[in-house]
């Protein structure tokens, strides 16, 4: 590892800046989700009989869409759906992936081989393609989306945790615990698991951003949440045909909210990665 260069202090400050700005953006998104009903006078699926595709201003801060629903209200309420699905999906992926990786890495043997070959087949696809295929075959809906997104992200955690568990397994304190008669489960739970999760903490926020883009992409193609539900990707999809006619307000605002939330996760994740790599060369983590 290279010695910390003269600019390492600047790197550390930069990392802190990234973490703080990411957290602020995410806090704002959570706030928008929590206060959505207070911040808008229309319901997210309430139809204004007075007009469809009304431009911003007057009764509707950001105008209405082709169904006559208030864009501002929908954009705020969508934060609940998007954040909710993404956090649930990534949590599930971490849980499932870590458990698989932990067992495979610690026990090794044929179980490990089998799992790795299965992951090889699974990862012979770009992630979005995998998500697309599974979502199309499984069908849309909130629960299915959580499952699909968790499923495509779990292999990365399985590999990460497996690698860590393989090295933790060889450490003296694990050996000590085994020779003093602790059962396999106890050793896994008390010693191997806590020491194998370090990389997960750094990757998870970046992963949330990517998961959110996957969710929005699936919804954009009509494989997401059921129709009138306010969700950013679905809103952009609905507004896509307005763009050619020069009507921006149905698709630009949901995209900006989506971008801001993903950026929040990315800033946080990048900051954590930079801090973990303090001074040394940045780890070549791959976004999305």
């Amino acid at each position, binding site marked *: 590892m290279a010695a910390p260069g003269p600019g390492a202090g*600047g790197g550390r400050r930069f990392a802190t800046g990234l973490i703080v700005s990411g957290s602020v953006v995410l806090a704002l998104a959570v706030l928008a989700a929590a206060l959505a009903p207070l911040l808008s006078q229309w319901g997210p699926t309430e139809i204004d009989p007075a007009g469809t595709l009304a431009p911003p201003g007057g009764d509707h801060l950001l105008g209405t869409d082709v169904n006559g629903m208030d864009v501002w209200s929908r954009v705020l309420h969508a934060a609940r759906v998007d954040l909710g699905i993404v956090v649930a999906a990534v949590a599930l992926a971490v849980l499932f992936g870590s458990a698989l990786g932990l067992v495979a890495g610690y026990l090794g043997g044929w179980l490990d081989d089998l799992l790795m070959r299965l992951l090889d*087949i699974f990862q*012979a696809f*770009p992630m979005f393609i995998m998500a697309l295929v599974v979502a199309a075959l499984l069908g849309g809906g909130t629960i299915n989306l959580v499952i699909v997104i968790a499923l495509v992200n779990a292999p990365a955690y399985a590999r990460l945790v497996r690698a860590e568990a393989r090295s933790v397994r060889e450490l003296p304190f694990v050996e000590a615990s085994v020779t003093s008669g602790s059962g396999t489960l106890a050793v896994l739970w008390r010693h191997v698991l806590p020491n194998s999760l370090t990389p997960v903490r750094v990757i998870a926020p970046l992963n949330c951003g990517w998961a959110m883009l996957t969710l929005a992409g699936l919804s954009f193609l009509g494989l997401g949440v059921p129709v009138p539900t306010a969700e950013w990707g679905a809103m952009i999809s609905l507004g896509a045909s307005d763009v050619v006619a020069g009507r921006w307000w149905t698709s630009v605002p949901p995209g900006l909210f989506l971008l801001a939330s*993903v950026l929040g996760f990315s800033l946080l994740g990048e900051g954590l990665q930079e801090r973990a790599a303090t001074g040394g060369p940045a780890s070549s983590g791959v976004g999305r």
Partner: protein
Amino acid sequence: MRLLRFVARRLLLLVPVLLGVVVVTFLLVRVLPGDPIRTILGPNATEADAAAARARYGLDQPLWRQFVDYLRGLGTGDLGRSIQSGGSVTSELALRVGPTLELVVLALAVALVVATVLGIWSARRAHRIGDHSIRVLALAGNSLPDFWLGLVLILVGYSVLGWFPAPSGRVDPDTHLTPVTGADLLDAVLTGNGPAFGSALGYLALPVATLSIVIVAPLLRSVRASALEVLRSEAYTAAAAHGLPDRLLRRGYLVRAALSRLPALAALVFGFGIGSTVLVEYVFSWQGFGQWALRGLLFRDYPVVQASVLVIAAGYVLVFLVADVVHAMLDPRVRI
């Protein structure tokens, strides 16, 4: 010679993975709910109509029989007939791959050039304002939803400014371009069709820009990190202390070493680009492989789904193989 042996061994290793993909896709598409026959026949079809259609596509056969037939077809390059269109999947595929590859390869090329230039520039100003702004910008690009960025570019470039053609099609039909490979830019060059070349370029500009903006960030980060390592290495410090001219330092020491880690990442990003094109093609009505595969998927067109999944998996693992070979060429320390 050793390189050839390496490639041969890796190709052999691909066989079990691809066979796994074939089996899993074949089963998954049939086991999960959804029926292509009902979809194409519509709600008014009788049970007899459905049975006849099923027999026409061999779907009345037992599962193992269908699988054996499918494998036999694969051996001869016959991917079956599309249930939606009735056409040969192999020839439909041949028409669709060119335009998509053109899009992804051009976008990747643009992103690689941008990442190399900015990454090295950024590394030489490490932890100063220029470096930080480039990194935040790249992060923002990486956080952009590709399909939305495409729409915004259409809004600005077509609806407001009118500089680019409407987002539908790949080349102006009035230029009478004769298709050769399906990649319009390449076809225009091959047939010496100047107007078509200009038109294709105009149609390509926005989708290529969309894709390259969203994929540049990981490449940039990798170039910057590698370049930083070189800049801090003793070899580089010594060379600089000896007063070598800046040009030589950059060409001889920095660029090649900074690029050595890029191929593997570029392969990964290529895969990401393939995923992205499904969305980008949809936004720009590109009528390429992505849109074709998506429609097949939505209609449960078994042969189309099987073929497109297999093509993506094969293409993806092949690109990784190419990346390893390029890596070995860039970095003489790598033994393969």
